[in-house]
């Protein structure tokens, strides 16, 4: 692309939208660090809101990350083999299966939460553990991983590699673990990134499933917005930014690296 025509109208719209999007982020960051929001910077900078957040809500951050990681691992374990089976069987049946897997995304998280409570609410140990939330997250994020990896397995060069390995005498286990999975690693990474992002930020479903002892970061945020000072809410939001965003960027960067390495 060489020369660009100037679009002052679009530039203006972009500027307005950018201001709209960026202002609240700046506001919440500054609100987290001042002594008193209504007085603004005049009241001086402080870290005490952050300290308060870590004391009261520190656990939620740890658990959110743990659930997100467990979600990724769990979905990879059950999803990648399924993606291969779906890719090798382009029948109507398989397409329906994939569509059905995607239903939890179309159905509001509330409904899924209700359904899970209805079905398992009476199993106290399960209901009151973090596994209950993990299961909900896995159901909701699974289709993203499966879709991405199925598409990768269907690529013609992967089909050819599969056949080449077959002609060389490899059995299924050798082919799947030694050739196919390494070849779709970029897709698994991209899908995992989506799963991680969705799990960390998931609220609709988790709010239904949580108990006071099993709270995730978004659930804690909602609690702080409702019951705490503006400054504390802002500090908690800042903690979210500081902890979660770099993690996402790191994962994104790893995915990008993998894609470059395997570019054919």
């Amino acid at each position, binding site marked *: 692309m060489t020369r660009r025509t100037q679009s002052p109208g679009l530039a203006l719209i972009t500027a307005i939208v950018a201001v709209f999007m960026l202002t*609240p982020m700046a506001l919440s960051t500054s609100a987290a660090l001042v002594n008193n929001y209504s007085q603004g910077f005049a009241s001086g900078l402080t870290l005490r809101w952050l300290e308060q957040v870590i004391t009261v809500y520190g656990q939620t951050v740890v658990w959110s990350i743990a659930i997100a990681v467990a979600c990724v691992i769990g979905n990879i374990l059950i999803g990648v083999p399924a993606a291969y089976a779906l890719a090798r069987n382009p029948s109507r049946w398989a397409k329906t299966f994939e569509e059905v897997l995607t239903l939890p995304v179309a*159905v*509001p998280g509330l409904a899924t939460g209700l359904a899970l409570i*209805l079905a398992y609410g009476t199993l106290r140990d399960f209901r009151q553990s973090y596994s209950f939330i993990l299961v909900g997250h896995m159901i909701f994020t699974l289709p993203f991983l499966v879709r991405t990896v199925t598409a990768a397995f269907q690529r013609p060069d992967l089909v050819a590699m599969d056949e080449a390995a077959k002609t060389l005498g490899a059995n299924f286990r050798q082919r799947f673990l030694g050739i196919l999975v390494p070849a779709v690693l970029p897709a698994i990474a991209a899908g995992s990134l989506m799963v991680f992002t969705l799990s960390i930020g998931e609220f609709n479903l988790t709010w239904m499933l949580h108990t006071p002892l099993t709270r995730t970061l978004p659930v804690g945020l909602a609690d702080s917005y409702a019951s705490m000072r503006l400054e504390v809410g802002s500090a908690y939001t800042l903690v979210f930014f500081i902890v979660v965003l770099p993690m996402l960027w790191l994962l994104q960067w790893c995915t990008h690296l993998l894609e470059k390495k395997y570019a054919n």
Partner: protein
Amino acid sequence: MKSTHRLLLLPVAIFFMAFWLLPVSRLLILPAEQDWRLYFVFLTEARYAWSLINTLGLSISVTLVTLILGAAVGLYLGRQQFPGRQLLLSILTLPLSFPGVIIGFFMILLAGRQGLVTDITQALGLGRFSFAYGLAGLFLAYLYFSLPRAIAAYAAAAQSMDKSVEEAARSLGARRWHIIRDVWMVQLEPTTSACAAIVFATSMGAFGTAFTLSSQFEVLPITIYSEFTNFANFTLAASLSITLGLFTWFALFLTRRQEIVTGVASQ
């Protein structure tokens, strides 16, 4: 299907059946266990009908505005080159990872009782105008979490647009408006359909944002939630969830049909 493949699908099938298919089926028939007319409670009770209409109206308008603004910004950033462009794009798509509650909070910061805009209007002598808790605040909040998706989609699409078609049109004398209508909109059609579908579906099912704002404008997810928590009315919550799900699914179905009709492959 080969037996190995069947084995590979087994874990997913069991997991999905146990933790979604069977529970949701149970939920689906719950209203019927009491009275099948409960399925139509969204028509029969004014409160629920209005909640549904509110949600539909909000989602549709948010989708339309998001598409227009998102396309404008996405295309601009996708086609222009200037220092900091990539950074701006990354920051604008950041909210994709935010839970809805944060965005509700942002609105409170902007236009709540102590909000920035509220302070500005006071300083301008217009009185304290805080709109976060009404329709305007909700609309802006929904816009806030929808725009990043549209911007990301259109920016990506802008970069993979076929420049040769546009250059051919320009060499034939097409003006700016012709290019937008005959080249861009045609090439961006799949992006637009996919984007509209996902923005609409997200808006319909959004809960956290309205929850944080304790909005006066009642949307269906909130109604469902209050039926469940305040009145322990599982059955009613189930019926309304089905309604919400069906409307969302139907809208997505329409956009997919539209893609098939126009011969455009959905991604």
